């Protein structure tokens, strides 16, 4: 028989390795470089998917424990161990992801010593920590059985009931607390999801979701390892089995395999809980009067509807129809839909519901996806390992272990290598790692992704016909600079004065706008065009008959030296004559980087104004408000400052009265 889990394990290994790389980058470069989290959206995928949704989907230990130990429904006992395994892995998963999510992972233990009992996050932390310990204790019998420590197993079994009761209480507490976490955001979270009933919604849906999850895992387990009890067709239809909640007494139940009646019963309970949850949610909408938001046709309302359909309506339909209820595939689809809907609800409450208030859309970065999914994949691998090596689902693990297929060496005709290396799992996984780790490294390496956000510089927003007055607002942030161009020109010496402010133009171009080179508002930008120079210099040298073609590198980089920016000679050495530089760029290397538009403008104006203020006797000449008229508007209105302002106006606009200026924003 072929091993059905092998491709899944390979995929999980690939995902887990990608997650490993992302985790290393997150620790090395920090949250900002690796995630798309911002001040507007401080909580992202790791918290919401791995913690809030992950914990919600691991409720199976709590619900099955309740059914088996409290209600003593013995027919669900075979699912007890798998349910605890799922809970253990789910909580482990969310705690691992949280370790990467918090900004200072080395302080993860702080909440143990430093208490703030007013914080719901504090309660969540403690409950999750304690509950994880409890699932671990409940997992121990499996491990001890494997190690043949019978006495310890008996000891642990004696305490099971107490542990289960404590576990269920803790569980119900922190599931409600996870909902209460979002109670602090009444003005931020979208009205469809914000409600004072959030804690109760979270508990109820987590109970349903946990049941859906255990049904799904049981069916998948059967598919992978042991199809007979679920997919089998040997039993006579209508065999008397455990009661099926939705079947009327006396109606033939029509199950043909051993475990399906149990799973159908469990799924019915889950779908029932989910329907109660859905009804309560709708009631809550009516109660809060936000039901019209559901009919508004916004994308939030569509998400909300999708959530309701997936969590409740689809599962209840699939479970209600006898045909799908009796088929493992139909039941699996119901469980998957319920689990998926639950996860969607958590993402809505934790992420999507905040977009409208944050005025931004958060989409997780590659590294966030890689780590978030990688942690889940790693948990999946642990699941396979535990299932294959201990008696979680059944006692067949030893036979499975012994009958595991061994890969045979093959000769690869193309590379002439013996692929004997594929003999065991270790070889297979290391071969995967050789390809996956470098690929993940290249795709997730933050330095290849972080493109500097560029503030686009735009020309002046307004000018009169003769360019006498310019209104410059290079980044369109609303802070205008009024520049009396004609007046400056006249004062600095008429037509010959351009050079006082304007410097180099591109060759053959008399009207290069400043923003051509000073193209970023904030950052300096690289303006040196290397390929242009290689061609131009080579052609020039060739025409002059000086060098053979293509020997132009040595002209700038020096012969025998490495050809890097650090060894190159300065631009000024060649461009001494044709570089018509005014005032500042004395070091020609700086020409490779043009200063930002703002620095260039400020530099040109402020240097001159500072120099001139003593001479013309106007101490305010180098202040912001001299040019940024919008900042002076308030002073104009205040009588006490009127004198001051007229003086400033006189400087900026000659002798014209300020009121006659064409600026609309001064009034």
């Amino acid at each position: 028989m072929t091993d059905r889990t092998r491709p899944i394990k390979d995929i999980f290994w690939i995902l887990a390795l990608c997650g490993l790389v992302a985790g290393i980058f997150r620790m090395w470069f920090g949250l900002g470089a690796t995630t798309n989290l911002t001040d507007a959206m401080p909580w992202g995928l790791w918290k919401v998917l791995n913690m809030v949704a992950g914990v919600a989907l691991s409720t199976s230990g709590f619900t099955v424990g309740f059914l088996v130990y409290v209600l003593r429904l013995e027919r669900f006992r075979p699912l007890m161990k798998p349910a605890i395994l799922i809970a253990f892995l789910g909580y482990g998963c969310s705690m691992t992801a949280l370790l990467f999510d918090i900004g200072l992972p080395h302080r993860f233990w702080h909440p143990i010593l430093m208490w703030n009992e007013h914080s719901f996050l504090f309660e969540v932390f403690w409950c999750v920590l304690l509950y994880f310990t409890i699932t671990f204790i409940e997992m121990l019998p499996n491990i001890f059985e494997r190690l043949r420590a019978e006495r310890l197993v008996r000891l642990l079994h004696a305490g099971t009931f107490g542990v289960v009761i404590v576990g269920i209480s803790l569980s119900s507490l922190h599931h409600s607390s996870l909902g209460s976490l979002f109670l602090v955001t009444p003005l931020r979270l979208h009205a469809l999801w914000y409600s004072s009933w959030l804690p109760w919604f979270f508990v109820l849906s987590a109970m349903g979701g946990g049941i859906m999850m255990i049904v799904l895992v049981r069916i998948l387990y059967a598919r992978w390892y042991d199809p007979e009890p679920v997919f089998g067709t040997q039993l006579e239809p209508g065999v008397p089995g455990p009661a099926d909640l939705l079947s009327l007494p006396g109606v033939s139940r029509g199950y043909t395999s051993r475990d399906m009646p149990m799973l159908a019963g469990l799924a019915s309970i889950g779908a029932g809980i989910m329907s109660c949850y859905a009804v309560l949610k709708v009631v809550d909408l009516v109660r809060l009067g936000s039901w019209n938001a559901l009919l508004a046709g916004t994308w939030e309302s569509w998400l909300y509807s999708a959530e309701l359909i997936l969590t409740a309506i689809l599962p209840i339909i699939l479970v209600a129809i006898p045909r799908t209820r009796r088929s493992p595939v139909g039941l699996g689809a119901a469980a998957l839909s319920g689990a998926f809907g639950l996860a969607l609800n958590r993402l809505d409450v934790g992420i999507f519901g905040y977009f409208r208030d944050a005025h931004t859309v958060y989409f997780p970065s590659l590294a966030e996806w890689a780590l978030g999914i990688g942690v889940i994949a790693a948990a999946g691998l642990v699941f396979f390992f535990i299932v294959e090596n201990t008696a979680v689902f059944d006692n067949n693990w030893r036979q499975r272990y012994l009958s595991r297929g061994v890969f045979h060496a093959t000769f690869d005709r193309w590379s002439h290598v013996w692929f004997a290396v594929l003999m065991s799992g270790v070889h297979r996984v290391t071969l995967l790692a050789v390809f996956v780790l470098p690929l993940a490294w290249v795709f997730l390496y933050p330095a290849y992704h972080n493109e500097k956000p560029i503030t686009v510089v735009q020309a002046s927003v307004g000018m009169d016909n003769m360019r006498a007055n310019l209104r410059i607002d290079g980044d369109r942030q609303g802070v205008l600079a009024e520049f009396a161009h004609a007046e400056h020109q006249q004062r600095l010496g008429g037509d010959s004065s351009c050079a006082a402010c304007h410097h180099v133009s591109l060759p053959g171009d008399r009207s290069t706008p400043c923003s051509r080179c000073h193209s970023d508002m904030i950052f300096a930008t690289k303006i040196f065009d290397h390929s242009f120079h290689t061609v131009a210099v080579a052609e020039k040298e060739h025409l002059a008959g000086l060098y053979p073609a293509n020997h132009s590198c040595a002209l700038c980089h020096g012969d025998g030296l490495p050809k890097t920016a650090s060894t190159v000679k300065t631009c000024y050495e060649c461009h001494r004559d044709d570089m018509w530089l005014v005032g500042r760029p004395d070091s020609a290397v700086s020409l490779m980087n043009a200063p930002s538009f703002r620095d260039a403008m400020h530099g040109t104006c402020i240097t001159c104004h500072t120099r001139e203020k003593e001479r013309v006797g106007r101490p305010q000449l180098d202040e912001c408000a001299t040019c940024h008229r919008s900042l002076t508007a308030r002073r104009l209105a205040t009588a006490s400052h009127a004198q001051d302002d007229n003086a400033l106006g006189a400087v900026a606009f000659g002798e014209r009265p300020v009121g006659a200026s064409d600026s609309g924003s001064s009034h």
Partner: protein
Amino acid sequence: MTNSILIDTTKCTGCERCVAACIDANKLDPHKADIDRAQTEDGLSSNRWANIQKVADDRFARKSCMHCLEPSCVSACLVGGITKTPEGPVVYDPTKCIGCRYCMLACPFHIPRYEWENAVPYMRKCDMCFERVQQGGKPACVDACPNGALVFGSRKELLQKAQEIVAANGSTYIPHVWGETEFGGTSVLYISDEDLSALGWPEPQTAAIPGLTEPLISKTPFIGLGVATCLLSVNWIVRRRMKLAGEIDNHEVERND
């Protein structure tokens, strides 16, 4: 004595000297602060704790931490790293912080900012120059304001003063002191002749956020014990019914337990 800052937007010219003073006093990087001003929505960032915002045409207001009387961040922080001091400022203790960013989610004014670009990041926000206030001084921004748009003093007096100004100049000012009741009251008060909802002010009667969670969380131990009691009693009933119905024989009990 709870201190407070009163901001009169009619006197603010938007010169941003308060911001420059803040950057200087807190030893922030002015270049980074400039970049962040252009790149964030409200100009606040971990490098820029205060910013001048345009609230209307030619009307400006300083935005930074409001130092609420019942701060949501204080109640949210799971390690108790943020405290409301008796002097008024809400201060942050970087030695406790684990970086969960719940304070950022909890703050109704979106004030706490994170040092995203650092590998070892902390939350940053205005602390009303706590050390200067403790030594009897004024916050740097108040000292720097050339027009007297920012006034520092005890909250009670400032509130009274603000109400007097508003009442005396009824034609100019909107008859409301922002920060008096919003979210249970804040230690930064605004008076203005323009609506200030651009700064994130809600309806005047909006209740403090800790009021939404703290009544619930104080009941937690009882809820937990209640659930456990319910479970035990349900279990007791179930067992008894099973015993009465004779459904379990001794053999099964032994096997299952």
